Every structure is written in structure tokens, then in C-alpha cells.
């Protein structure tokens, strides 16, 4: 049985949920970051599947945008994490709580 659209979408949803849980539960900023990437790629997978299903290239274009943004985000985000580690000797997000009331 060749895979059909629902298979791809379910896989995307599973990946997205894993990523989301990672973001919500894990404390290590690097893991959180990887989870965000996972969410982005889950969305990318859904885009590709629907694009294939609809015979449309608009979804694929969207994927390129997401990838470009994700690359930029990685550059900035990793830089922030490095800078944060240098000043605090930790990458745990729960220590990152100075911006509060």
C-alpha cells in the first residue's frame, strides 16, 4: 500500500506534537531549540504532502520560506544561547527568568 495523504498528515501531527512537548517540557535550551526545529519540519512535511496532493507548487514555495527563516533563526538563536552560556554558565531555560514582574 503506497502511502496516501492521511499518512503524511498523521506523521506530521505526531512530529509536531513531539516537538511541542519538547518545547513545553524540556529545560535545556538546546533541546527546546531542536524541538522547535522539529515542529517547523513537521509543518514542512504537511506542506509538502498537501502540495503533492493538490498538484500545486505553492506549498513547496512555502517550505522554502520556512527553511530560510529557520536557518536565520538557528543562526540568531544559537548565538543567543552561546552568549547566554558565557554569562551564566548554564543553558537551562528556567534560569532565564529575569524578564518578569
Amino acid at each position, binding site marked *: 500500500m503506497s502511502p496516501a495523504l492521511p499518512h503524511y498528515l498523521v506523521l506530521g501531527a505526531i512530529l509536531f506534537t513531539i516537538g511541542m512537548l519538547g*518545547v*513545553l517540557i524540556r*529545560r535545556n535550551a538546546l533541546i527546546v531549540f531542536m524541538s522547535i526545529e522539529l515542529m517547523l519540519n513537521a509543518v514542512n512535511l504537511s506542506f509538502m504532502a498537501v502540495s503533492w496532493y493538490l498538484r500545486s507548487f505553492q506549498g513547496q514555495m512555502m517550505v522554502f520560506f520556512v527553511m530560510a527563516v529557520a536557518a536565520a533563526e538557528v543562526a540568531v538563536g544559537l548565538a543567543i544561547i552561546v552568549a547566554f552560556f558565557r554569562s551564566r554558565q548554564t543553558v537551562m531555560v*528556567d534560569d532565564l*527568568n529575569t524578564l*518578569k*514582574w
Partner: protein
Amino acid sequence: MLQNVWLIPVVPILGALINGVLGRRLGRKAVSVVACGSVGAAFLMATAAFLELTALPADRRLVDVDVYQWIPVGRFVPTVGTLFDPLSAVMALVVAGVSFLIHVYSVGYMHDDPAFSRYFTYLNLFVGSMLTLVLANNFLLMYVGWELVGLCSYLLIGFWFQRPAAAAAGKKAFVVNRIGDFGFALGIMLIFSHFGSVAFKDVFPKAHMVAPGLATAITLLLFLGATGKSAQLPLYVWLPDAMEGPTPVSALIHAATMVTAGVYMVARCHTLYEASPISPHVVAWVGAITALFAATIAVAQFDIKRVLAYSTISQLGYMFLGVGVGAYSAGIFHLVTHAFFKALMFLGAGSVMHALGGEVDMRRMGGLARRLPVTHWTFLAGVLAISGAPLFSGFFSKDEILWGAWSLPNGSRALWFVGWLTAGVTAFYMFRLFYRIFHGRSDVPEEIEPHIHEAPPSMAWPLRILAVLSVVGGWIGIPAVFQSVVPAANWFGEFLKPVFESVRFAEGAHGAASTELLLMGVTLLVAAGGWYLAHSFYYLDPERRRAEAAARGAGVVYTLLQNKYYVDELYQAAFVKPGHRLAVVLADIFDVFVVDGIVNLTAAVVAGFGELWRYLQTGYVRWYAWSVLAGAAVLVAYLIMR
């Protein structure tokens, strides 16, 4: 020249510019030359224009030139232009002529002042503004001049602004004038809204068609401006305080020229005033009451400049009495003669102050006749003129006004009586002033005594010239009664006649010549009585014991007069204090609690919400992530359920 009359005010303004910009570098001599030269040039040009005007036939003596279209906005097209007719010619000549003499006098009077060039800058600017006022051919330009002379007056009263009294006096003059000018501006707006133009040539020919109520509103608003500028009841209070300025300024602005602007304005707008059934009576009565009121105050003052100031207010009242009853040329005639003799007396007072090191209290004077002969004789000429001694200028002009008040339809016996009484009081306080300065026991402090000196030539010559003018100045308008005795009687009235041609009645027509002569005699009698009283109090009794006894005898009345009827105190209590209290209420209560309250309330509401929401800002990233998830879930749920 008649087409280029606009040059007359421009030249002094140029002088003011030169002195204002370069004055500090030019040195005193150059500053005086520029200042006196520009005013002298203005006087020469005014004379030339005047001669050209007299060469024209009497009915064509009206030259209206628009020089420049100013601010054309729709129907509102005011111009910068000049009107040269006998009335403005007389005004321009008097203003430029007296100004020139006072400029020359000032060179001597102010020679030690460190702000010499600033003084002449202001003085030149004043002359230019005053000439603008009298030569303007529309209400708006006249208003510009009106405001500019007010500004110069403020600047010159407060010339010695280091003295708190001078600064306060300048401020008082400005504020009081503001009340009057407000009325004047409203009057002009009303004129524009009704006539659709502010040019004299559009307004006056149509003036008789205006509804009486509207004419009354316009003219009374304009007259409010006149009471401010010309120091009439109820707005006269600034003029006595204005004596804080340098004495030549008092002579020029607060005696001879600026304060007569209101009289000129009423005479200029006479067609409007006649369109109203009430306004001329208001003008006449305000003038008459002011004349008597101010004269009685002058009786009990000791500051020589303040005596002259109250005298000026009183004489201005006479002029308003004249123009109010319709004796326009008599009012303007008195304006001219008053400019001569009052400028003379102020300059004489300045000369006395100069000699005594700035003393103004007549209780520290006396017996100065021999030490200051020129000042003494010239001052006497002025005193005789204002008291109405026969053949002196004031005699003719004052009697013409009183005759007008008696004989013209707008006049009445009561008006005449007030004017007549004032003539007696005037003679008394003037001779009191004269005798206390120049005769009787000398009360000059001993340390000043050796330094008394007569005025330098630049001050003495203007005194002499003005003294001559005070004597002969009246001969241009010898009443028509004397037609059989002198040639060219009432030349002045004839000259001004084309301007006032629309007057419904020939001046002084309703009354026999014998009545006029009789009234003249009666006035002379009361003036002589005033003189005799002063003579016996202050001349025949050098120790002045009788005068002191009389003052004690008058008791409350004397105290009342000495305190100027407590008008300043009344205004203080009625207007200044409540105004101050209102300001306190507004500043300390309304502003603090209402205005600031609204602002603070806004801030407090925002702060309160901030206080509530800030607990959401835990600082934990995962908390934010949860809230994003929750928000997204709610959105998705909403979109699905919809």
C-alpha cells in the same frame, strides 16, 4: 509730496532701525544726529505736504493714496495707504514738530544715560508709529499704529526697568491699554462685518445709513479704545504711573501726542459717531467728568510730574467734551495748543528735575525762579496758556470748546458748567504748581542747593520755542466772534471745515455773539479766581501756612483728593484681587485637581491594569510557550466550532 506722504512715517522708522542695529557702535553724537535728523526730515516733509495741500482748492484737499495691497483674503483687502487731508495734516505737523523739539531736548536730558541709543531707538519708533496712526487711510493700518504707539509707550515707561516701580508702571499701562484696544479691535471687526471694508473711503460715506443701534455699538467699542489710549474714565489709571518713564517721554507720548490719538480717532470717525443717537453724549460726558475728576485730584498732589499727568487727563477730557458735542475743530484745536503748552510744562518739569538731581516732590522745591530763569519764564507761559489767560493759546481753544458745549445741539448747560468749573480748578492747581516750584520759601535740601544749574542749550531752546508756540499757537484759531477785530479769524476752523463738512450744523451757529463774549468773560472770571486763590496761598504767603490750614480745614475731602479718590485701591479690590484670587483658584485647585486629576486618572488606570497583568510575566519561557499553545488551541477550537 502729496503722493508720497507714506515716506513721512517711514523715515523715523528707518532712523529707529539704524539706531537699533548700529546704535552701540555709532557713538552718542551720531545717534543724536540720526534720531533728530530723521524726525526733522519727517517734519520737513510734513510741512511740504501741508503747503501743497493748502495750495489746492478747499474742496479738493483730500489725498487718498494706496501704496501697497497688504493681505488680500477674499473680500478682506486691506491696504497700506495714506490719507492726507486737513485733519491728518494738522496731526502730522504737530506730531512731527513737537517730536523734533523733544528729540533735541532729549539729547541734553539723556546725555549721561548708558542706554542712550536704546532710548532714541524707541523714541524714533514711536514717532514713526504715531505718524502711521494719523496718516493711515484705513482702520486696520490705524490699528497697527495704535498698537505700536502702545508698545513704544510700554517700552519707554519701563525704560529704567531696573527700578521695580518703572517696570510695574509699564506693565500697568500695557494691561490697561489692552482692555481698551480689545474694544477697538472689536469695533473694527464690527465695521468690517457691516461695511465689508476697513478703508475710510468705503466706510464714512455710508456711515449715515447704518442702523443707530449698530452705530452705537461700533462707536462705543471704538471709544473704549480711546478711553484706554487717551486715559479717560474709567481707564485713566495708567497715565499717572506712566510718569516713571524719562520726562521727555512723558512730554512727548503722555502729553502731546500718543494720548491724543483717541481724540483724533473720534474726530476722524465723526460721521459714525453722528449716526448714533447716544455715542456723542457718552463721549462728551465721559470727557467732561474726567476733566473735572482729574483736575480735582491734581489739586492735592505733590509730585510735580503727577500734577501734570492729572492735568493732561483733565485736558484730554476737555478735548473729548469738544468732539463729543460736535465742536470737532475746537477739540482738535485744543489738541494742538495742549500739545504745545503741556509738552512745554513737562519739559520745564524735566529741567527742574535735571537741576535738582531728579527731585519730583514740590515740598522740596520753592524759590527757584532766580536760579532757573529760562525754565521759570517758559513755564509761566505754559501755565498761563493752560489756565486760559487772554491771548494765550489755551484761552482760545478752551473757550471754543466751552462755547460749543453751550451752543451746539449736542451740548447742554450742565456740560458747560462742568467745563467751566474745571477751568477754575485748572487755574488753581497750575498756579499752585508754578508757585511751589518757583516762588515762596526754598525747601531745597542744603546739599543740593549749590548744584542747581540752568538747563544746557539743547534743553533750553526747545523750551523757548515751545513757550513762543504756547503764546502764539492759539492765534491760528481766534474765535469767529472777533472777526471785526482781527483778520483771518478762525483760520483753523475754516481749514478743517472740509473734513467736518458733513456735520449737520455750523459750529457755534446757535447763539448770539454777545452770549459768547459773556461766557468768555465768566470763564475768565473763574480762572482768575483760581489764580487768585493760588496766589494768596502760595505767593503772598511764602511760608504757606494758610495753604496748610486750608488743607487741614478740608479734612476728609483733602485726604480723598490726596489719595486720588482711592480709585487705584478700588480697582485693586474690585479687579486685581479677584483676578488674582481666580488665578489662584485656577492654578491651585482647578489645575491641580481637575486638569492634573484627569491626566493622573488616565495614568492610574493604565498602571492599575499593568499591576493586574504583570503577574502573567513570570519570566519562564515555558510558561509563555504554554500560553501560546493555549491561545492557539482556543483559536482552533473557535474556528472548528464556528
